[in-house]
């Protein structure tokens, strides 16, 4: 079993772990997800129809409407939020969205998480230390 460590910068503190859900497509909040189920609904998105509920979401960053944070906020209240968020591109949408989702979030990595992490890998996130431990799936 291979384990890989990534180091980045805290966006939101706390610890969480879960199965990775990785996409190279940016994610829209309002009009891009269904907050009741955590499902991606943007028709052109590669993960359209899949839910990030309880997953460690690994993605480039946020796009679309400024309703981004409120949709992820609603996802937290409906219990459909991701367990943690790892991303590359810092924007106000994702910063505020991560803060109100209150799931551990890390950015500014020493290696590109989109290169290292694959869907199905097991990922432990320590938001405060900015440390991510990836266990590759067998």
């Amino acid at each position, binding site marked *: 079993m291979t384990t890989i460590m990534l180091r980045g*910068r805290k*966006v*939101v503190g706390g610890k969480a772990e879960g199965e990775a859900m990785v996409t190279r497509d*940016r994610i829209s909040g309002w*009009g*891009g997800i269904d*907050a*009741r189920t955590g499902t991606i*609904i*943007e*028709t052109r998105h590669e993960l359209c129809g899949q839910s990030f509920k309880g997953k460690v979401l690994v993605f480039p*960053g*946020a*796009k*679309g*409407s*400024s*309703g*981004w*944070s*409120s949709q992820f*906020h*609603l996802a937290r*209240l409906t219990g459909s939020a991701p367990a943690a968020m790892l991303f590359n*591109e*810092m*924007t*106000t*949408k994702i*910063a*505020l*969205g*991560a*803060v*109100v989702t209150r799931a551990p*979030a890390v950015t500014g990595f020493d290696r590109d998480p989109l290169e290292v992490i694959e869907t199905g890998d097991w990922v432990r996130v320590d938001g405060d230390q900015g440390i991510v431990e990836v266990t590759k799936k067998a």
Partner: protein
Amino acid sequence: MLEGREGPAIARAMDLLVRYGEALGAERLVDTNNVCGTIGATTPLLRDFAAKRGGFDAVFSEFNLDSDEVVPTPKVRAYSCHLQLGIDPLHAEQLGTAPEVVTLLRRGEDFVSKMGVQLMNTCTPYLVGNIPVKGEHCAWMESSAIIYINSVLGARTNAEGRESAGASMITGKTPYWGYHLDDYRYGTHLVEIDTPLEDIADWGLLGYWIGDIVQDRIPVLTGVTRAPNLGKLKHFGAAASSSGGVEMYHIVGVTPEARTVEEAFGPRKPVERLHFGAAERRAAYATINAMAHDTKVDYVMLGCPHYSIEQIWEACRLLEGRKVHAESNLWIFTPRAIRHLADQNGYTRIIEEAGGFLMSDTCSAMSRATPKGTRVAAVDSVKQAHYLPSILGIQAWFGTTAECIDAAVTGRWSGGLR
């Protein structure tokens, strides 16, 4: 403020702004006296929340301050305007809004206006009197409005969310990061345009194509030979901010921070040179219309972003003396204040005599409402064509305003790229 000496709501707001600012990596906050955001609870999920959790203070605490504890909502400190909502109380019947929801909206409006927030109820506050000046620090939500005031007016705002805008309204502060700083506002991509941009639809195609490529970076457009007007720039920005996340652009010779290419890029070198010609225009058109195939049009929606009075005038010139087809529908959306002007000018009567409706405060994407049985819509907005299939699971044709009015009158889509 953070310690609670100015009341629990201010303390919660500062706590959120500090957490948000630290997440961004901002060094400090900056004063703002111009905030646009959303407080109301008219969408279905928020209506449920307000009903179950004890009203508008609970909604404001949770969704505008990210506070688990319900705190009393104070009056705003910054000049604050309310954005679009989930319903139009004057067209509740057409939108399928239950009477108790209208009652909730009226109570919400009372709450919001007592806070001192302007009930503009539109995605286009810049159409109805909130026109920031160059360099003004703002904290706005609504992607199509953010890109407009940054790019066309030279104001300075990041894309705020519901929570941060609420916190900024009552504190008059926002993180000093991103588009508030000079260095962040320079161009990244050079876009050379060598196909004519004739109408509002063309500007939407250009915006959609650019947003898809540059995502959230800053395009600098050259080769624009005729200065676009407000309607064209409004559509361009709305399109670029929905296909990508563009929050600022420059048009050399047109927008205020781009008198020259050198000024637009400042110390940066373009990371990429793009070319928009006839082939790119065709490709954008094909992408936007990819989800539409049935030519029977049940519903024509105009007014995304909300129509200006000039656009209502143009739609009326195309519509006057004609009738909306028995199996089709026409809804046009505009800010509340502009609807009053349209009433006064006789445009509302022209639209209603044709069998259409002039609505305000919302749109189909916000309200999730369309005429009963709608399977296929036609729109003159790239943004709406982008969102409606995802949100409502219907087909959407995109074309010019004239093609959309024709579709409403004939019940058929016969548009196509010229």
